[in-house]
């Protein structure tokens, strides 16, 4: 098939993302490993883009890791998600913005199931009412939070303080984009560009001056595999999948990896540390590790936020040389400070020190 034909196919996979008024649900993994990313998403939305985003502290985990770990039944997760809808209904919001890709996949799966099996929607309404006295309306839209940043990428580009480019040569940074499997592999119509040509991160990277790397294992899973990471004896599965990706992207000499799924970002950072420790191998240019950024961190850098407030130091693969390349002045001595400026014990043995 000619490229033009493929571009026509992906063009069919577009989705409507509302302009404003979102009900935000956090991610267990993102808030744990990238707490700065959720905070900066909210700041960008509210302060830079002037949007209304509601967060209700009574929302909980969607139970997704338990669901895909096969301990939480479908009926249960459906009812927990219905409870989140109930909180949105109570607050008068109809657009759900979801931080986590696992959660996003679950919301799409549940809404699609209810469409095909209306009796299950009725059963969920009944269960939620019996358990909590709550009722809910179906949302008018659901979007992964990266969809929303994608929608406003050009507005962010107009406000950019920094480009995804080498400040010395002016050349675009070479970026590997990694889309979490559950963003669009299950329900391609819910993702920008579907499963084969997801455009959600490409759009951001290209709007902000970077260049995307196309490499053979681009669509391979990061290897989370739920039970394959959760249980110690299975972790070789997870490591092996990430390693396959690193080996595949290495010849293209990426400057950075960006992911829209918090689990993927965490694993691709952690497994680089493990491979460096166990085999002495690093996959970046000149024996360095490849920094792995969340898309919120990438957007935050472009908008000129302090990398240490974004939490970029809380990755095993440090990004000092990437920041220098982009012309961002970030003092390494300020990385591991407390909020009041006092010095915390610095971690040793980080990748790219």
């Amino acid at each position, binding site marked *: 098939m000619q490229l033009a034909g493929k571009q026509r196919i992906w063009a069919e996979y577009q989705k409507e993302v509302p302009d404003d008024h979102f009900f935000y649900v956090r991610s267990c993994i993102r808030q744990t490993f990238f707490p700065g990313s959720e905070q900066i998403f909210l700041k960008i939305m509210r302060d830079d883009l002037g949007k209304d985003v509601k967060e209700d502290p009574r929302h909980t985990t969607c139970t997704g890791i338990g669901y895909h770990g096969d301990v939480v039944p479908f009926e249960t997760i459906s009812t927990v998600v219905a409870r989140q809808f109930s909180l949105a209904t109570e607050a008068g919001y109809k657009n759900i913005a979801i931080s986590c890709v696992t959660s996003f996949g679950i919301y799409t799966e549940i809404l699609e199931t209810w469409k095909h099996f209306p009796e299950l929607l009725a059963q969920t309404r009944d269960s939620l009412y019996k358990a909590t006295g709550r009722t809910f309306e179906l949302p008018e839209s659901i979007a992964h939070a990266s969809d929303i940043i994608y929608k406003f990428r050009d507005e962010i580009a107009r406000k950019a303080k920094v480009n995804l480019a080498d400040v010395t040569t002016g050349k675009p940074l070479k970026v590997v984009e990694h889309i979490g499997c559950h963003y669009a592999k299950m329900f391609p119509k819910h993702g920008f560009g579907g499963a084969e040509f997801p455009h959600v991160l490409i759009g951001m990277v290209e709007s902000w001056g970077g260049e995307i790397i196309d490499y053979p294992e681009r669509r391979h899973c990061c290897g989370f595999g739920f039970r394959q990471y959760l249980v*110690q004896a299975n972790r070789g599965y997870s490591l092996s999948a990430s390693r396959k990706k690193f080996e595949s992207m290495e010849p293209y000499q990426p400057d950075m990896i960006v992911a829209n799924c918090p689990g993927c970002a965490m694993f691709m950072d952690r497994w680089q540390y493990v491979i460096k420790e166990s085999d002495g191998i690093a996959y970046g240019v000149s024996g360095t590790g490849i920094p792995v950024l969340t898309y919120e961190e990438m957007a935050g850098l472009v908008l000129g936020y302090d990398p240490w407030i974004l939490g970029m130091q809380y990755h095993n693969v440090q990004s000092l040389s990437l920041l220098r390349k982009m012309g961002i002045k970030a003092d390494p001595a300020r990385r591991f400070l407390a909020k009041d400026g006092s010095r915390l014990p610095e971690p040793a043995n980080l990748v790219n020190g």
Partner: protein
Amino acid sequence: MEDLYSMLMQDVRFEEGLNACMNCGVCTGICPAAEYYNYDPRRVVDLVQTRNNDIILGLLKSETIWYCGQCMSCKTRCPRGNTPGLVIMALRKVSQQLGYFTESEKGRQQLAIKRTVGENILNHGYCVASYLVSPENHPEQGPVWEHVYNNLGDVLARCGGELNGKEGPTRKITDDVLQELKNIFDETGATKHYAAIEKASESKAAELGMEFKSQGTDFEYFRFIVSAESGDHQKEEIRREEYAVSR
């Protein structure tokens, strides 16, 4: 014995996941688990669609059904609209309902997932939270995680959050909200499912003559299930590579 195919059919994911498989093997071609483990989703689906009770029973007791990582890459690719990953989820559910999961090394691990992620949900309102990921149990998290774990309050504050605060990342989920979650679990079958996992695991521990505790993770059977590795699960070429690396 129960009609196992009928039990599977009661799961909407099974109904959604299996139409009619023509055995093309695209799912196996795309599957990350099939690359790592001795695993062939095409074969699993083909066995299930025989509707033969003995064959399905064999699957419920097997290692095979525990190899899938639920990335769902198979759903995108199947030309017939099947989803082997959903068929696997239905098989795992029935295996746990009937207690067959304890017959396999990988299946027995379900108790570990229930005791960690499963209980985190009810105790904290999260599947995972920073204070639950100890560096001791997660050496792969590396030095940066040790720093974060040891300075949680400071790290969160620097990023604009508050550990166990009223809102934001890692906010404290209040008791009334946890009670709502508990009520949902009771109402929708999760509590019963948890009990089935516990009961079968306790029986298996007794059969193996191992210590079992009704709570926590510090006991012989738990340590056994999270670390047992027979070495028979992986593809031969992966085993060869590991052997080469270890030399």
